[in-house]
């Protein structure tokens, strides 16, 4: 019982917190993949830009809450400009070119950040301090806030995609962009705004996780691999699948650290993915023929 409360429960919550934030990151990746057929290699760098934009805003305004609004908007704007100038000319070409292009974008973003802010590790102080007694243990307030914020965001995104006209347009574009174009919708604009939205989400995830993790130019490179695994596990292009898979990965990672050292955990996560792919080649919720 002591073990349960003192070790297992906090670790479970850690996993949930991380999984929810990972879900935000993977969701944007999945939607962009569904829309453009491009696996966005620069997504990790947008996540990293979110944290650095947050540092910049906190430096000026000394308010984490302002940063939480301004940083995603700024990164969203960067995303929109990037989409219009580099990805839009590639719509008619094979997705291969888009994939390779985003790899180039990732290099440019990473190096730009390293030039502006330097390569050192940085930290953002959590805006909420202290901890709360919870189920017999004590849990940091910031992580509770993070869990609540990610859950509310995921819920809001779900409502956006099911209840609003804009969200339904995006889903229609994933299904059949050409048909949507024929119906008189400005499809390139849908693409650009969706890319901007996914960039803003990635930035938000980066900023929200920054007080728990450290901020450095390579931080996106490590997250993006995990996000790729989440997207594959969930089933390519399945938004619900991404969220479920993100929680599974988050929980698996934090529970496995109880029994293994971190590098074994990394290999165990890969092994988990390979096993899932053998048993269910299309991931949890992937459907046959979708985006293949």
């Amino acid at each position, binding site marked *: 019982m002591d073990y349960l409360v003192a070790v297992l429960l906090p670790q479970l919550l850690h996993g949930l917190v991380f999984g929810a934030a990972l879900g935000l990151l993977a969701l944007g990746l999945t939607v962009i*993949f569904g829309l453009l*057929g491009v*696996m966005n*290699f620069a997504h990790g760098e947008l996540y990293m830009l979110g944290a650095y934009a947050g540092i910049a805003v906190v430096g000026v305004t000394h308010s984490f809450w302002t940063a939480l609004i301004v940083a995603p908007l700024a990164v969203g704007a960067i995303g929109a400009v990037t989409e219009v100038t*580099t990805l839009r*000319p*590639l719509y008619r*070409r*094979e*997705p*291969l*070119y888009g*994939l*390779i*292009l985003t*790899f*180039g*974008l*990732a*290099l*440019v973003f*990473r*190096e*730009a950040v*390293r*030039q502006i802010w330097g390569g050192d590790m940085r930290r953002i102080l959590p805006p909420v301090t202290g901890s709360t007694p919870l189920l017999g243990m004590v849990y940091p307030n910031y992580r509770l806030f993070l869990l609540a914020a990610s859950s509310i965001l995921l819920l809001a995104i779900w409502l956006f995609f099911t209840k609003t006209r804009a969200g339904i347009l995006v889903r229609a574009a994933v299904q059949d962009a050409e048909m949507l174009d024929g119906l008189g919708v400005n499809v390139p604009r849908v693409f650009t705004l969706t890319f901007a939205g996914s960039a803003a989400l990635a930035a938000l995830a980066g900023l929200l996780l920054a007080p728990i993790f450290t901020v450095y130019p390579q931080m996106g*490179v490590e997250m993006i*691999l995990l996000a*790729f*695994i989440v997207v*594959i596990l969930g089933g*390519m292009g399945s938004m619900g699948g991404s969220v479920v898979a993100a929680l599974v990965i988050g929980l698996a990672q934090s529970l496995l650290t109880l029994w293994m050292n971190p*590098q074994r955990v*990394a*290999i165990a996560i*890969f092994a988990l*993915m*390979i096993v899932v*792919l*053998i048993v269910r*080649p299309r991931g949890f919720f992937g459907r046959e023929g979708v*985006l*293949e």
Partner: protein
Amino acid sequence: MNRVLSWRAVVVGLLVALLPALPFMSKFYLLLAFDALLFGAIAMSLDLLIGYTGLVSFGHAAFFGLGAYSTAILLERGVLSLWACLVAAVLVVGLYALVVSYFATARRGIYFALLTLIFAEVVYTFFRYTQTFGGSDGIQGVPAPRLMPAFAIDTPLRNYYVVLAYLALAYLVCRVLVASHFGKVLVAIRENEDRARFLGYNVQRYKMAVCLISALLTGIGGALYPGRSAFATPDLMLWTVSGEFIIMVMIGGLGTLAGPVIGGAFFVLLQEKVSSYVDWYFMVIGLVLIVIVLFMPRGLLGIRAMLGFKQWRATA
């Protein structure tokens, strides 16, 4: 001379063979030339997948690194024969490539890129944290391999000719392959996979075969690397290295074989030149890649067509 080997390729090969005779070719430039030829050959073998079959491998660094580790481990333990190292590399890389390609080719499109990437990351993580193989430091300071018991490949000049021989052989293999019926089926798969399947070709088997060939050529290149550098580190297998291989192919021109050789050499020289002046050369490389994808999808070889020298041919 038939269409497999043009006179031009032979002339270029001979000129490259005479390169060390130039007065300014110091040891430093010889090693640089070694890298240019080695990565040119690796980019060329990757072109078999990307350019001809339409499969983007984001895991070629693992083939390269496994080859390098095979050699380094043997050399460290006193097995100095280059041939033994090559055999070991072929076995290790071949076995790994079979497993990866079995899973990766079962799925189409983007899955291939992601699965090769993740398998490569498993290999990277394994070597990064296995202390038997040096952990994150890798294997350092291995002795030079020997071509024959009394002939060590211990000078930059000897290394240069070894890598040149490897490039020439790899080029021949790729040319023969591309001109063969097998190569035509690969292009058919790239153009229309369903149609190739309806014609009765076992598409997955063809994909696995070309993966294996490309991986082996890359692995042999990797096996030559410790002879030049005296080390093998996990950093050789980072997925960003796989990305650099793709950049080399794109710079040179997809589906041309000769293009990626030029692209690889260009990349190595660009990196060397730019990084000696500024510390943000990754930015330059990223921008070069973006410009090429956007404006010159045929790469450096495409410039000929732009200038109107010759009609560009898609593939052989």
